[in-house]
């Protein structure tokens, strides 16, 4: 693995902390201001749904593939949802080819939980023949360029791809699930929005870029739904957070999430 330049990093951090004390960030954003978010959907026509998301310079492409599958024994009448992520070796000088890293696994699982726990997709509508056949929804995420905050960019890409995905309507004939030609949307019920907050020095900043991530002590991701409920969270990095900052982060996630949800809805309706 290539070593990062720790000298430059520590000088950068010093400057960053000075600025934050006066409520400013190196790239000019306010503390609770996410970077520019751009969402393009339908970019991979061969997929059932897809979205290309840029959050600042972080670039994620999510693709949805839908097939029939065998349900899990404990949920015989519910569909299957799988979220997978690969941090492509092209995405940064530090990424490597090979089996999914610990970071990629955490990224996929946290994204998955945000979707699953918010009950974004009504899984009961994906059942076909109880215990035998259900609809399986695979969402694969290609992390193509890394400039911090993969959690949010990946989550927005997955949500946007699912919101615009189309699948064949299935009918059950002679105890077999048969695809019809009719295309229908995936049964999406909510729009969960992930908001990631980093602590640099003692300040919380929304949507950290790579430079800020190199200086952060702690990261917390909170996913909220359309009703301002909190439906998933993951604290990360080798540092702690005070209980007060957890609650502050929750409030920030709700308010910032609302604005981002509006953008996602606009791009995917």
């Amino acid at each position, binding site marked *: 693995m290539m070593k990062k330049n720790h000298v430059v990093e520590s000088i950068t951090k010093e400057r960053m902390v000075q600025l934050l004390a006066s409520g400013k960030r190196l790239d000019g954003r306010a503390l609770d201001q996410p970077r520019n978010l751009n969402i393009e959907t339908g970019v991979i026509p061969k997929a059932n749904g897809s979205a290309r998301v840029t959050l600042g310079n972080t670039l994620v492409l999510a693709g949805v593939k839908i097939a029939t599958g065998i349900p899990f024994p404990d949920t015989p009448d519910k569909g299957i949802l799988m979220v997978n992520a690969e941090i492509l070796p092209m995405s940064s000088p530090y990424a490597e080819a090979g089996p999914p890293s*610990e970071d990629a*696994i955490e990224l996929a699982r946290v994204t998955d939980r945000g979707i699953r726990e918010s009950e974004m997709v009504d899984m009961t509508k994906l059942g076909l023949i109880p215990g035998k056949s259900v609809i399986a929804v695979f969402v694969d995420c290609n992390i193509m360029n890394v400039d911090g905050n993969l959690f949010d960019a990946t989550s927005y890409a997955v949500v946007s791809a699912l919101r615009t995905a189309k699948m064949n309507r299935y009918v059950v004939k002679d105890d077999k699930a048969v695809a019809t030609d009719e295309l229908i949307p995936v049964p999406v019920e909510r729009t969960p929005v992930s908001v990631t907050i980093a602590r640099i020095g003692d300040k919380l900043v929304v949507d950290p870029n790579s430079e800020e991530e190199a200086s952060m002590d702690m990261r917390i991701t909170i996913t909220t739904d359309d009703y301002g409920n909190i439906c998933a969270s*993951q604290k990360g990095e080798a540092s702690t957070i*005070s209980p007060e900052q957890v609650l502050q982060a929750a409030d920030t996630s709700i308010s910032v999430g609302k604005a981002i949800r509006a953008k996602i809805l606009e791009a995917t309706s």
Partner: protein
Amino acid sequence: MAGTKKLIDENGIRLDGRKWNELRPIKLQVGVMKNADGSAYIEWGKNKIMAAVYGPKEVHPKHQVLPDRALLRCRYHMAPFSVDERKNPAPSRREIEISKVIREALVSAVIVEDYPRTAIEVWVEVLQSDGGSRVAGITAASLALADAGINMRDLVVGCSCGLIGEQVVSDLDDTEDKEGNGDMPVAIMPNLGLVSLLQVDGVYTRENFQKAFELAIEKGKQIYQMQREALTTRFFGGEAQSTEVEEAAE
């Protein structure tokens, strides 16, 4: 997620007889393994978990050496017989993620700067699994670190709270975790008053989020007392005796 059906009755009593804010029985033992530099065993509800620590020791492979501090390694692993359906012994994606968050929860408590260029290994083996195995694992692991004589800023102790319907409850067992409406594992450094692990599943109103989170911290502090007793027993009360603490219903 199937809803509230019988997990809690009209009098607020849960399937196993607990009130909303009660803990399951917890039993702690420190210094139970012969070879490990430090170890602790926890029984918490039906969880049976062994944590063991080796180190500080030489780092292999060399290129992972950190010049200014110790490298903390952590593996959370479930025995194949620990769950209802036999688990493949190879590490699952879930185990890889939990290993990461446990490591991150512990590393800020360890004074890693005191052990430059070394490795400290934390092995958490779930022998029988119930709800809350990761917080039970952290609770045991921080005792094992202390048992190994590793310098620490504070112990780390975890508790998971969550939701049954819209009712906030403490310390979900396996059934409540699977059929309830939310699970929130929290680990804290009790003396420093800081949170070192936080994960959330489920759908919480802002109010319930705060209630569950604060309950987890409160319960964590209670378990911390048991940790202290277990260490006292270890260092002053003979070797590897068991600290069994059954909480009086509140």
